[in-house]
């Protein structure tokens, strides 16, 4: 069968110990049975391993950091589009999504680059700081959460929340605090790295279970695969995991995707308590770094996203194999300094 040739740009090439989803997304795309996909990698730093993975990433361009804003990003993409015909762009970082959502219509209209992102309103609804309202609106249990800007607010929260409590950054990082001293330390650590606000959350005891899912933006969940981490790094990232057959968890996840009319990939993080109750801890607005497991189980979510971005109708996946495991590994790439020089000085390779 002749595969249709297209070009997809993807960010998240930081395939490190706390990996971005870019490389797993690209692996899924490269395994498409109907599309022959050329990959344009979009990087932020010169040592992102994906830049040097020639078998997966055909060409690389550096992007300005998200803090530079959407106008600078658009200008850079305009240059990239003058060099490459990009059909679809998949942003894979939480922190960059705001900019891409803002310019998604311009990308389509001016540069003919398709994306498949939620609207700003739906994106904002699932922000960590809005989790309580989100849970109520979409009928899913969530732990009590508060957004704070001053360390003294932790004292006030001690009236309703007990230790241990979870101290979280706006985008990343979460620490379990057993005392006020620990909580205040984590508060400062988080604001130094991620800025304000800081989220203080009730600690729910149980087993962490996660779902990678994709919605069509019209109220249909196209795919969902549940996973439990089997081995985690010191940063809490999955180094190994196994796909689960948990109908209730999938039902809850589908309900969230369908009712919120989520458009694109996402990750739902839950705690399953001893009483078999599920608490949604977070909804991450992009594919997780373990999304390649979904492909291994029979649901190629990145491919489905690209097809929907191209305006094609994708039928929802109805099942997947449980008991499939992923085991991450590290691998040293040997790279000549000329290649590093190329990306460092020219901003592309």
């Amino acid at each position, binding site marked *: 069968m002749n595969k249709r040739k297209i070009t997809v740009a993807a960010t998240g090439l930081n395939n490190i110990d706390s990996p971005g989803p870019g490389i797993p997304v690209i692996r899924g795309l490269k395994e498409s049975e109907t599309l022959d996909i050329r990959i344009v990698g979009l990087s932020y730093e010169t040592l992102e391993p994906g830049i040097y993975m020639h078998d997966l990433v055909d060409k690389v361009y550096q992007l300005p950091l998200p803090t530079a804003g959407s106008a600078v990003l658009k200008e850079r993409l305009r240059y990239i589009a003058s060099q490459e015909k990009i059909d679809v762009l998949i942003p894979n970082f939480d922190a960059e999504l705001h900019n891409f959502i803002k310019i998604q219509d311009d990308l389509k209209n001016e540069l003919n680059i398709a994306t498949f992102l939620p609207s700003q309103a739906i994106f904002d609804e699932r922000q960590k700081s809005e989790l309580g309202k989100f849970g109520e609106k979409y009928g899913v249990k969530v732990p009590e959460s508060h957004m704070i800007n001053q360390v003294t607010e932790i004292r006030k929260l001690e009236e309703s929340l007990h230790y241990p409590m979870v101290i979280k950054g706006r985008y990343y990082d979460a620490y379990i605090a057993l005392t006020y001293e620990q909580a205040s330390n984590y508060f400062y650590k988080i604001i130094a790295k991620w800025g304000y606000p800081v989220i203080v959350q009730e600690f729910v005891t149980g087993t962490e279970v996660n779902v990678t899912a994709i919605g069509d933006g019209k109220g249909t969940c196209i795919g969902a695969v549940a*996973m439990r981490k*089997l081995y985690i790094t010191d940063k809490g990232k999955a180094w190994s995991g*196994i*796909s*689960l*057959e*948990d109908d209730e968890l999938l039902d809850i996840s589908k309900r969230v995707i369908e009712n919120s009319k989520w458009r694109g990939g996402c990750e739902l993080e839950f705690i399953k308590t001893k009483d078999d109750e599920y608490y949604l801890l977070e909804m991450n607005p992009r594919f997780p770094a373990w999304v390649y497991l979904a492909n291994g189980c029979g649901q190629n979510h990145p491919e489905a996203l690209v097809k929907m971005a191209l305006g094609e109708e994708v039928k929802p996946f109805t099942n997947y194999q*449980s*008991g499939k495991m992923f085991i991450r590994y590290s691998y040293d790439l040997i790279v000549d300094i000329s290649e590093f020089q190329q990306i460092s000085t020219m901003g592309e390779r």
Partner: protein
Amino acid sequence: MKVRKNIAISENGFIFNPLTGDSFSVNETGVFILQKLKEEESEATILQNLMDEYELDAHTAEKDLNDFLSMLQNYQLTTNE
């Protein structure tokens, strides 16, 4: 007591619970009991089968079976339906 739906038990005693992602290894006697449970045999029948198969007295067989069944329940591998 029944083995939960979808629990996979291999001949060499490897058990996988797809609901929780847990896996376990049991010995030959464990496989013997699990197979009987899967065949929906009653606990009384399994007890008698254990005594016959391993030449055990009633007291030892009952104690071992009860220990094993409570362990299965603890790990959410069985239901009482």
